[in-house]
């Protein structure tokens, strides 16, 4: 097993070498989970199905290509989709009984079908604005994705990053002040990264130089940054809002990309965004490529998996950890800038509201993989925005339960319904060179 493949191979029984094939354990987790969700579907969409017509509005008024609103009879659609769900669950059970793995696409299709069925059920007698739902979801996800990328890099190099929340908040605060004072968006973004790096410096210094427990430093840093920004906000910013916290100067304009922004549904969602979101697209791709295809990434992962081995071949463990944790802070800090410059404009006390912890959950849910963590962050953003959209159109589910959903999903994921998650081996441990 090479270092490069170590964290991934664990989760792919199909990639086990032939000699070990007999040791593959039948995992009934997926069929059981599918079965449970199928039963929920039968109860919710068929037995207690709602009457009426569900509408899905697919385009906004300003779109170049107008798509008519889809209208579906609620109960009939629910029944059809439930039949498909049951069929998929049965297929996965069949696969497992034949010792064949349940592929990822089955899970994805199952989840999507369940989602459509749920939306149809929830939207009985109303119309869901799909572009609005997705635009809001992307908006809520952006800081989560930045935070998750920072978390992935930091944990892959062996430093648990609980301080994502603090990095986001520091980025939000500093970018707002700098952008407001200078009026330069670029300076705001750079200072947000610098703020994230500063938080990372403390995390790195305490955990790498003084060997303090990384989780503890992270938690304390979150408290420190929360206290510091709240103090400065009440003591300094509120006294001079026009100069220091002026939302008109801070907020970035939306930059529609010509051509791409006219694509139906996707255009308004992905390509009518601020510069921060476009940086995000690049960042996800670059982090993924660099982590798995470059020498830098290989060294980073080696330090996180087996620092002693990395040290033996001449990699400076402390220095690698220090600079990569700083890099992680810069990325997370940029995500913090989205709270102020990308959306509302002015800074507010504790405006990140736990986003850093959700990003941390996305890291683990995404199994320390940048792409999967991004998808997990998008899922969390989608779930929270779904809640607000459903509460506008009058949802049958209390909004608190929708808000609870991402957290419950994470608990299920971590508890092993999706698969036992395994982080980088040396993550969270100080490396004391001997």
């Amino acid at each position: 097993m090479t270092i490069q493949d170590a964290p991934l191979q664990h989760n792919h029984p199909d990639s086990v070498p032939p000699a070990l094939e007999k040791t593959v354990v039948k995992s009934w987790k997926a069929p059981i989970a599918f079965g449970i969700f199928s039963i929920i579907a039968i109860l919710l969409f068929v037995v207690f199905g709602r009457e009426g017509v569900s509408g899905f509005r697919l385009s906004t008024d300003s779109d170049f290509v107008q798509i008519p609103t889809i209208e579906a009879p609620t109960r009939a659609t629910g029944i059809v989709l439930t039949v498909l769900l049951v069929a998929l669950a049965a297929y996965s059970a069949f696969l497992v009984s034949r010792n064949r793995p349940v592929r990822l696409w089955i899970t994805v299709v199952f989840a999507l079908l369940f989602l459509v069925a749920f939306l149809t059920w929830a939207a009985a007698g109303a119309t869901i604005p799909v572009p609005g739902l997705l635009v809001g979801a992307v908006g809520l996800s952006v800081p989560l994705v930045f935070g998750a990328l920072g978390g992935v890099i930091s944990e892959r190099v062996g430093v648990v990053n609980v301080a994502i929340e603090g990095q986001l908040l520091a980025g939000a605060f500093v970018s707002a002040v700098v952008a407001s004072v200078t009026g330069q968006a670029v300076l705001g973004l750079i200072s947000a990264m610098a703020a994230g790096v500063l938080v990372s410096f403390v995390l790195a210094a305490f955990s790498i130089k003084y060997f303090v427990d990384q989780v503890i430093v992270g938690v304390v840093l979150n408290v420190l940054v929360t206290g510091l920004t709240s103090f400065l906000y009440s003591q300094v910013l509120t006294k001079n809002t026009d100069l220091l916290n002026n939302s008109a100067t801070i907020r970035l304009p939306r930059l529609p990309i010509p051509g791409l922004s006219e694509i139906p549904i996707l255009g308004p969602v992905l390509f009518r965004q601020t510069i921060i979101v476009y940086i995000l697209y690049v960042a996800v791709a670059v982090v993924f490529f660099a982590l798995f295809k470059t020498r830098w990434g290989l060294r980073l992962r080696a330090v996180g998996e087996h620092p002693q081995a990395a040290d033996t071949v001449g990699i400076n463990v402390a220095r690698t950890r220090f600079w990569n944790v700083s890099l992680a802070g810069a990325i997370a800090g940029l995500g913090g800038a989205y709270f102020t410059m990308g959306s509302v404009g002015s800074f507010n006390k504790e405006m990140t509201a736990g986003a850093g912890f959700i990003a941390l959950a996305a890291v683990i849910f995404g199994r320390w993989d940048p792409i999967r963590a991004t998808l997990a962050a998008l899922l969390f953003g989608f779930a929270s925005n779904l809640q607000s959209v459903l509460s506008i159109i009058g949802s049958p589910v209390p909004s608190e339960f929708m808000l609870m959903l991402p957290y419950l999903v994470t608990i299920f994921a971590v508890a092993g319904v999706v698969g036992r998650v395994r982080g980088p081996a040396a993550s969270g441990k100080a490396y004391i060179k001997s």
Partner: protein
Amino acid sequence: MSQPTVPPVDSGPPVASSPQKPDASIAEPRWHGVMREIVGGSAMISVLAVVLAMLAGGILIALTDDKVSTAAGYFFARPGDLIKAVWDSVSGAYTSLFQGAVYNFRRPGFIAGIKPLTETLTFATPLIAAGLGVGLAFRVGLFNIGGRGQMLIAAACAGWVSWSFELPYGLHLILAVAAGIIGGALWGGIVGLLKARTGAHEVIVTIMLNFVALYLISFMLKTPGLLQAPGSNNPKTPAALPTAVFPDLLGPQFNLHWGFIFVIAATIYVWYLLNRSNLGFQFRAVGENPNAARVAGISVNKMYIYAMLLSGGLVGLAGVAQVLGTVTTGFSSGIDAGIGFDAITVALLGRSKPWGIFFAGILFGAFKAGGFAMQASEGIPIDIVVVIQSLIVLFIAAPPLVRAVFRLPKPSGVKLRRPRTQTAEATK
């Protein structure tokens, strides 16, 4: 993250060399070694950490003060003004902090003067209880960030008992306290169970359960028939019946209530549990080294479950103290008041030892009580207290840093080499 983060138990969070038994091979006079132990030891570090943090807080207060920045404008013309402005702002802040936390000389009579101290103890009550819970989990190698959720559930359970039944004095209170502790214990126990059965990391599960509890309580608070006060549209509960409220400890002129006695009892219990009981020995063994404990025949998984049950129960006591002692007129979803997170810093400051946590809780209670007074009289936002508290914990977690700042000697010269053998397996 798949391995439990195990903060070293006896010396608290820092992994750096701990000043314990002096090595026999040190060739220096005994009194020299004793001096080193005193100035480089952990008690000194704690005191210096507090001093450093207060100093940093003072700088922050001075930097953001209006009069200071005005005086700084003509520093070269009249430097004395700047020094006076700095002194006024910082000493004013810390004087009002002291007067709000310990004794107010400006008030007439002893009763009125000492009231701030009882306020400190009132604020300390839930902090100590929750700190004991978090500290107990630390000793078993578990990190319980779920204080918020456990407190909310405990508050809901205790609150529900406190207004739903009409029972005689005494019995009602005991039942309400028990309900709260059980609620918190079960919410914490879920974490232990998941960790033991599936290996789910407790940090993630506790964070997630905080949010689940928050939304669950918010839902129940706005649903008539669950926690919402009848005839009201606000997300607020009814008031606790007087039979279930903690009686005043020092008479009606003070807010201090019997919850403080419960917390003292809890501290003694945790001390006994950890230091004198069989279960506590197994807890500590698992905390020191789960693999060795397993080899010795201790069921590590069972210990995780028991520890999280007890930890959740103790944090639950903090929630109980809030609803039956501090906020008895009905509460909303903010009843935890951030105590679940403050408890982490309390446990760290107390180095996860019961009496250490007790005094750390009182110190943080003093900061809280004094912070409100400072905000009222000097207009300095109470958030400065949060900054000082977190700085204290940061400094305490890294003794070498504090030693470097004050140029203190290392506790004993030879000890520094020790980590080589001790941590060889950590880097494996």
